[in-house]
């Protein structure tokens, strides 16, 4: 692979920032309230991103607290666009918490507190004037357990565009979203049927179609295949590598083979003495699995702990 990225640094203090090109100056604070322009996909789905490319999202010194308990501490890393970044680590290392911090999903849990910055197109998503609802429209989410709405397949996909005031041909959005989620051929004749009547794997792909339908730039996936059988898991992974042409994907997974197979970058997290999660190492996936910098990473990916 012709790596155009500079050698990833890795710092045990939790900062795994790639030294990317100078960041574009912060765009106006109103950006999140304006009509979004479709994410311009880079040519092809190659993981090798343009070094000048702005990171899709950039976490700076992020800590998340549940009440007085700090779940993750001082997390700094950036997420390259049009690539799959996986978060791995033992239970309790704060992977899901970190993932949910990216689209402000943690705001919905009473008692959570956030410190740090999440930069998206130069704007801090946690700034006072940012609307979290708008953030979630740009940064979609797929959950661990498939959770289609108790509505028809069509209405599941059309839900997002509808509430976002979509004016246009809804049928086309539904079809293209289902096609991109590799579900169209299986459901095109039964769009009126309940989404809950589908199999687990189909339900998860429906949830992906639902997330795609609002045209986000980034899709967060919280162990999207953990409730699925191996065949459906493989389908989801194939789907992900197809989707990264147009979207940036961050995935939390417990399955190390999955991270190795499906992701371009891997962030390895662990739980510190104070039970707060931190980043041990963040690198290209191939490096994490074949040439880890830290003994702890090596131990984890080779199954010696976690």
């Amino acid at each position, binding site marked *: 692979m012709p790596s155009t990225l500079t050698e990833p640094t890795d710092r045990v203090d939790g900062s795994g920032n790639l030294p990317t090109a100078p960041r574009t100056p912060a765009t106006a604070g109103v950006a999140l309230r304006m009509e979004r322009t479709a994410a311009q996909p880079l040519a092809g789905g190659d993981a090798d991103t343009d070094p000048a490319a702005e990171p899709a999202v950039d976490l700076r010194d992020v800590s998340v607290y549940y009440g007085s308990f700090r779940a993750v501490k001082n997390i700094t890393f950036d997420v390259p666009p049009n690539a799959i970044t996986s978060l791995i680590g033992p239970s309790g290392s704060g992977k899901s918490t970190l993932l949910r911090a990216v*689209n402000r*999903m943690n705001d*919905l849990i*009473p*008692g959570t507190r956030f410190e740090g910055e999440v930069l998206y197109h130069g704007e801090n998503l946690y700034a006072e004037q940012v609307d979290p*609802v*708008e953030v*979630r*429209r*740009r940064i*979609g*989410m*797929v*959950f661990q*357990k498939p*959770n*289609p*709405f*108790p*509505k028809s397949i069509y209405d599941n996909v059309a*839900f*997002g565009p509808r*509430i*976002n005031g979509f004016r246009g041909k809804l049928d086309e959005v539904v079809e293209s979203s289902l096609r991109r989620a590799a579900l169209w051929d299986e459901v095109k004749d039964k769009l009126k049927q309940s989404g809950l009547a589908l199999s687990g794997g189909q339900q998860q792909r429906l*949830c992906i179609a*639902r*997330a795609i*339908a*609002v045209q986000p730039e980034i899709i967060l996936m919280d162990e999207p295949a953990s409730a699925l059988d191996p065949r459906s898991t493989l389908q989801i992974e194939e789907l992900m590598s197809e989707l990264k042409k147009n979207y940036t994907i961050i995935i939390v997974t417990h399955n190390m083979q999955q991270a190795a197979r499906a992701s371009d970058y891997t962030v390895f997290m662990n739980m510190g003495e104070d039970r707060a999660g931190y980043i041990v190492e963040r690198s290209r996936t191939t490096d994490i699995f074949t040439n880890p910098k830290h003994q702890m990473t090596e131990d984890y990916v080779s199954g010696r702990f976690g």
Partner: protein
Amino acid sequence: MTTASRALPRSLHRTGGADWRGLLFHGLLLVSLVFSLLILFTLITDVLMRGLPVFQERGADFLTRPTSSSPARSGVAQGIFGTLMMAIFVSVVAFPLGIMTAIYLEEYAPDNRLTRLINVNIRNLAGVPSVVYGLLGLSIFVLALGPLTGGKSMIAGGLTLSALVLPIVIITSAEAIRAVPHSLREAGYGVGASRWEVTRLLVLPNAAPGILTGTVLSLSRALGETAPLLLAGAVLGGFSTGSRGLREQLFSDYTVLPVTIFDWSRRAQAEFRDLTAAAIIVLLVITLFANAVAIILRNRYERSW
């Protein structure tokens, strides 16, 4: 087979002694069920045996006449009218207030000490004896607000019953809302829905069957109440509605079926015993009807989802 030679630690065969405790428990459960059904059966047959002849004898006449001192000319028209008006009052006042309160408490209120205090108190209010609500109705809706409600009027009675069922409506609605899975809300937020959109498009339609069941059960409860309305001005005995229009009737004398039943059951003439039974049948039919409506509405909602 190697396993065949291995002796089982215990025989798989039934041992001689039966599981006496299990059987006893089973029997007790059955007896409880039969006992409950027997009581219900006795009550209903008694009421039907006494009440049905009244309908055979007088037919619709019994339903359309006002209460009178003479059993032969007494009817339940005023009671039916009052009870239906109470149902409308409760539906219009207590249901929206209660359901909206529940939505606020479950979806909007911050989870702090004040909210928990309010929740606990609403639960306690639901356990307050209905006669206490009667006193509340008497002091507030009849006396304090007398100039507005017309004193011992249908409005005062309707408001009293609404206050009585309000905590029940809030609790059952809140429980139905709480039962909507959290994952559904997250799914909504995940595609950029606002709290209002999640509540309106996902939570409420999903909670609707439960809310409906709870509200209509509380309606049945309200329609069966006697004590609070005796305090809040329902008329025992006959009264004349004359040629008053609906608007005037709202502000004047009224009675409801349970009060009519209570009244008749205390009359000296033996004929009133049968009239009481007949009035009970009418009340039962009305509450069963209300329940049937709830079930039909609930099924319709469940199907469309």
